[in-house]
């Protein structure tokens, strides 16, 4: 990944703050869309498989209705599916440009696989409109799409889990060792189950509740569709707590915070509401519960994305801080260089020198007595007629005498330094020898 790293400049400090929010936006755009696409394809292929093996009569119709309802138009696939991943790739390339192990490499593989998976999912959707298509071919396309999507999102989970654990970046020299950690599996299963749950709920909502997409079905099929949508929704909503809990206990310690715990509790509370609503939908046939369940699940998705974001920010806090410090150092170095060039022409100003002396130097130094640093009378002699050396020392102090603590950098401007050195040497001349 050395090659890839060469393309990225260290990001500036402002840039890093901006990027944090950009990641959040990317997730908001990508996750709901891809959940429907992945969940829809899984459900549809499942029913297509049932139809192929000759069971229930509604199977073929429902597998078609699912792809029609849940998979958005092709242009959405590029804008909401592939583009966010490419943006994420660029962002992570910037944030983790110096991580010993290439976090970004996983995302690159995932992006390629997911893009292929999305294209195949659209081809699968299109195959329902083709005049003559063999069932086997249709199934193969659906399954191939699922294969690429699932492998792609598994690798995506590896990337996410790795980002959360900066403590391991230095020591994982063979990335494949990281593939099967508990956190990776928790993330992957959580994502799969959430996408199935949201797909089931969306199926009910778009088929029965929303005016724009509502259609008239024959009663037997309508009841079947409700059962499938509500059942899948309820089943996978109920497994959410398991994976949420599993993910939480496998998060590395720095990622945890009270906010993360509270957000998780909030998500579980909403899940409880959704599950009860869905129970009414399934048992008491209250189809209007579809709207509220779907809307609440979207809120749960948003809470989970935000929680994940908060945890990630906490986990990589040190890393980001380091990048900001480095960026500032580079900025400061450039600034200092410019100043030195400018200062070559500047004449020392003795009154300014006196002011600097009184505010900065006197905390540690006197001419005739030892405070923190050595008395001037014992050290300034060697700089007589060599003000450049003293200027260089004040600009960048180093430890000279082991009996004294090291002198810190004072963060003075070139003009300040020149002036204070001139003042010091002039005062030293006046001291009784």
């Amino acid at each position: 990944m050395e090659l890839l790293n060469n393309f990225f400049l260290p990001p500036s400090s402002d840039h890093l703050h901006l990027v944090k929010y950009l990641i959040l936006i990317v997730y908001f755009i990508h996750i709901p869309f891809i959940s429907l696409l992945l969940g829809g394809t899984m459900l549809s292929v499942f029913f297509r498989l049932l139809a192929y093996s000759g069971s229930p009569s509604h199977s073929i119709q429902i597998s078609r209705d699912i792809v029609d309802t849940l998979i958005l138009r092709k242009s959405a696939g590029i804008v909401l599916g592939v583009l966010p991943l490419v943006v994420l790739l660029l962002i992570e390339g910037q944030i983790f440009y110096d991580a010993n192990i290439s976090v970004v490499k996983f995302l690159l593989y995932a992006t390629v696989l997911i893009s292929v998976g999305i294209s195949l999912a659209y081809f699968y959707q299109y195959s329902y409109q083709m005049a003559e298509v063999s069932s086997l071919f249709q199934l193969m396309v659906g399954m191939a799409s699922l294969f690429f999507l699932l492998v792609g999102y598994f690798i995506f989970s590896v990337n996410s889990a790795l980002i959360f654990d900066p403590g391991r970046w230095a020591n994982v020299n063979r990335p494949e060792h990281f593939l099967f950690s508990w956190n990776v599996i928790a993330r992957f299963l959580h994502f799969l189950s959430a996408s199935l749950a949201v797909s089931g709920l969306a199926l009910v909502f778009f088929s029965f509740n929303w005016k724009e997409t509502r259609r008239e079905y024959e009663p037997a099929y309508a009841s079947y569709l409700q059962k499938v949508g509500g059942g899948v929704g309820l089943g996978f909503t109920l497994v959410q707590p398991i994976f949420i809990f599993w993910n939480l206990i496998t998060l590395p310690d720095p990622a945890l915070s009270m906010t993360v715990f509270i957000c998780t509790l909030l998500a579980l509370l909403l899940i409880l509401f959704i599950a009860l609503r869905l129970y009414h939908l399934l048992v008491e046939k209250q189809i209007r519960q579809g709207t509220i369940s779907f809307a609440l699940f979207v809120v749960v998705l948003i809470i989970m994305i935000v929680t994940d974001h908060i945890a990630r920010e906490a986990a990589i806090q040190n890393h980001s801080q380091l990048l900001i410090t480095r960026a500032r150092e580079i900025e400061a170095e450039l600034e200092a260089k410019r100043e030195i060039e400018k200062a070559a022409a500047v004449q020392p100003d003795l009154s300014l020198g006196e002011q600097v002396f009184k505010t900065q130097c006197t905390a540690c130094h006197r001419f005739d007595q030892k405070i923190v640093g050595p008395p001037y009378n014992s050290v300034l002699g060697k700089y007589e007629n060599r003000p450049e050396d003293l200027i260089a020392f004040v600009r960048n102090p180093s430890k000279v005498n082991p009996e004294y603590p090291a002198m810190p950098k004072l963060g003075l401007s070139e003009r300040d330094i020149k002036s204070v050195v001139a003042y010091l040497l002039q005062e030293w001349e006046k001291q009784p020898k």
Partner: protein
Amino acid sequence: MKKRIAPVLIILYVVSFMGFIVVIAYFWQQHRKTPEQPINFSHQIHVTRVGLPCTHCHYSVEISPAAGIPPVETCMNCHQAVATDKPEIQKLTRYWEEQKPVPWKRVYKLPVRRYIYFSHKRHVKAGLECVNCHGHVEIMSVIKAVPKLEMGWCMSCHRQRNASIDCATCHK
């Protein structure tokens, strides 16, 4: 009657998970790895701004198994004169006047001496930098344990650098 049972089960199921999370949050709060220190000391100021090397305060790291927490005297070398107007330094000065050590809370905990033999000196001699195990302390305003000090973590580094992975190396 049968109808009523399912919702109750659903409530019990989800609420029990919420209970688990509350318990975990409680224990996490009790045992968090970033304890509050008696003085709000910032490594960032001392390393990045002032430019002190780690060994300025942790001077025994190259010569002894323990890196050592500096005595109050080391702080007072400078702070008798520097930043004496700051409340945190005044706290420090109080410890100095009462001739008491600052009760720093330990951040890195290993069951050393009971189960594990660990020597800072040996690791420094082998060419490791402080940052390899302690993270970028120079940017931490509050010190945090960065890696989990687990055996697997030690092992992967030992393997990577061809250091001994014999049990008796650490478990004497």
